[in-house]
């Protein structure tokens, strides 16, 4: 009798479980696209970063990263939304499974291509996403799965062991490539970019970045967060912006760094 009960109970539970899961899948496909990266954090990060606005997964938003984070403190990524064809308000990048998810928010402007390369920290294998808000009020979401051994956000910066940065903080090395009309800027800024997640090392990171033209107008405006790597290297592509440019940065301690490129 007891055995029979167990069997029935088991069958009932299995049936209930299958109904439940079937029901859930049905509901999800009916109302929204399933996350192609199957992240447990997608529902949460979507709410945090996109709120209640309309959104869609869009292959035109390309996030490039190596398949494996060889150095979890320096993972190269490129976010490229050029396939959307302009009319972009802002771009938000984040890593779902980082303790600090937000990487940057970027307002590209009309004289810069919607493509940026930089290096980031990851704490474990994670989806890396970019959401692009077009002027029609829709978020276009792209992303890539990055494998990692882990530890990028809770490792002390190398600057912590080497006082080099103290006497070189905010130093900028830069170079302009390509033609005057279609030029690319690459620059590196000396900064420890401490996350605040390491014992007794407070967060200390570059918070704002602007690339300005000779008239002082901002071509690139970017808000940065601690997952951006130490001594960050950025790559931006300008279109139809000639003449001298200036780079301006400010960190969360209020230090400002400025250089004519």
């Amino acid at each position, binding site marked *: 009798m007891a055995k029979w009960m167990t069997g029935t109970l*088991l069958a009932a539970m299995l049936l209930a479980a299958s109904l439940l899961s079937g029901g859930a899948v049905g509901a999800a496909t009916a109302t929204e696209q399933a996350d192609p990266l199957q992240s447990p954090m997608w529902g949460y990060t979507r709410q945090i970063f996109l709120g209640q606005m309309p959104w869609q997964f869009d292959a035109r938003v390309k996030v490039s990263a190596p398949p494996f984070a*060889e150095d979890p403190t320096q993972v190269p990524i490129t976010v490229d939304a050029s396939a959307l064809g302009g009319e972009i308000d802002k771009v938000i990048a984040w890593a779902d499974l980082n303790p600090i998810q937000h990487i940057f928010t970027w307002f590209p402007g009309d004289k810069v291509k919607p493509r940026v390369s930089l290096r980031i920290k990851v704490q474990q294998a994670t989806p890396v996403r970019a959401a692009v808000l077009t002027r029609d009020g829709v978020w276009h979401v792209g992303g890539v799965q990055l494998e990692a051994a882990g530890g990028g956000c809770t490792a002390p910066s190398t600057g912590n062991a080497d006082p080099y940065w103290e006497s070189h903080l905010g130093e900028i090395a830069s170079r302009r490539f390509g033609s005057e009309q279609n030029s690319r800027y690459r620059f590196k800024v000396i900064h420890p970019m401490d996350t605040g997640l390491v014992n007794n090392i407070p967060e200390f990171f570059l918070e704002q970045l602007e690339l300005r033209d000779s008239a002082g107008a901002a071509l690139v405006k970017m808000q940065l967060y601690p997952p951006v790597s130490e001594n960050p290297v950025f790559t931006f592509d300008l279109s139809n912006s000639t003449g001298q440019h200036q780079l301006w940065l400010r960190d969360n301690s209020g230090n400002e760094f400025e250089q004519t490129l």
Partner: protein
Amino acid sequence: MLSYKSRAWTVLMAGLMASLVSLSAQAQAFDYQLAPQQIAPDTWVLQGKMQDFSRRNGGNIVNTGFVVTEQGVVVFDTGPSHRYGKALRTAIAKITDQPIVHVLNSHHHPDHFLGNQAFADTTIWALPGTGQKIAQQGGAFADNMYRLVGDWMRDTDVQLPHKPLEMETLALGSHRFRFYSMTGHSGADLLMLDETTGVLFASDMVFYQRALTTPHTPGLDVWQQDMARIDEIPYRQLVPGHGPIVQDRAATAQMRDYLAWLDTTFKNAAEQGLSMTELMATPLPERFATVRLSRAEFARSVVHLYPRYEDAAF
């Protein structure tokens, strides 16, 4: 009701059988099945798979070797785990009754020294720089290996080399060994030439048909200079750290070709202002595309080395 019960019973039994089968399969899987291959008089090599570390291969991606003399056995590298070290020792015992007297660690990478525990009763030698690097980084390497290959690593711990190798030659029985100290691959790389047989154990200074790795190279220029030195060594056979054994200069030619290409490619990319992800997408020339893991190792090398080229171009 009865049929229901018997079905449940069948399912239970099938599950049990399946787990028993998988248990015995795993027990078999932890056997590295090392098969020493004789490549010259008194000289054996155990060639690893041309793969990356995995739970399938247990970390056996490395070439180790040993030479049997009348006064004992010399072992060159101990493999990726305690299990491997023990298996290597068992394989040697099947070939000779001679005791193992000298063991060499070519450099501080985990697949070359984590078998040391099985040789703790012998004398383990390594270049002074290698001993320091194992002391500093060995534990982290071992942890990472547990993550990569799992239970194959059971009971593996860091056994430091016993003595810093400072001698240039060693005579043992009828064999005379000459040691070369280089830095190109890891910062401290030991090569051993058996002058008696002409076999050069080239360690990871030479990879062949398996892409080279660059996490600790002091620079591609340094490695290229070392390659010129290796080509002057009068060897008749070369045992690379990874990949097949060669009787000619094919392995070093491939190394020099790839190192030069890598250096030029990084320099050009930095001059053109490529980002890391763009550089990683660069197509590899046909002659390297057939080298195992060339795509993956190229991407790793970009992370290891490209920042230096970027700095030079700014």
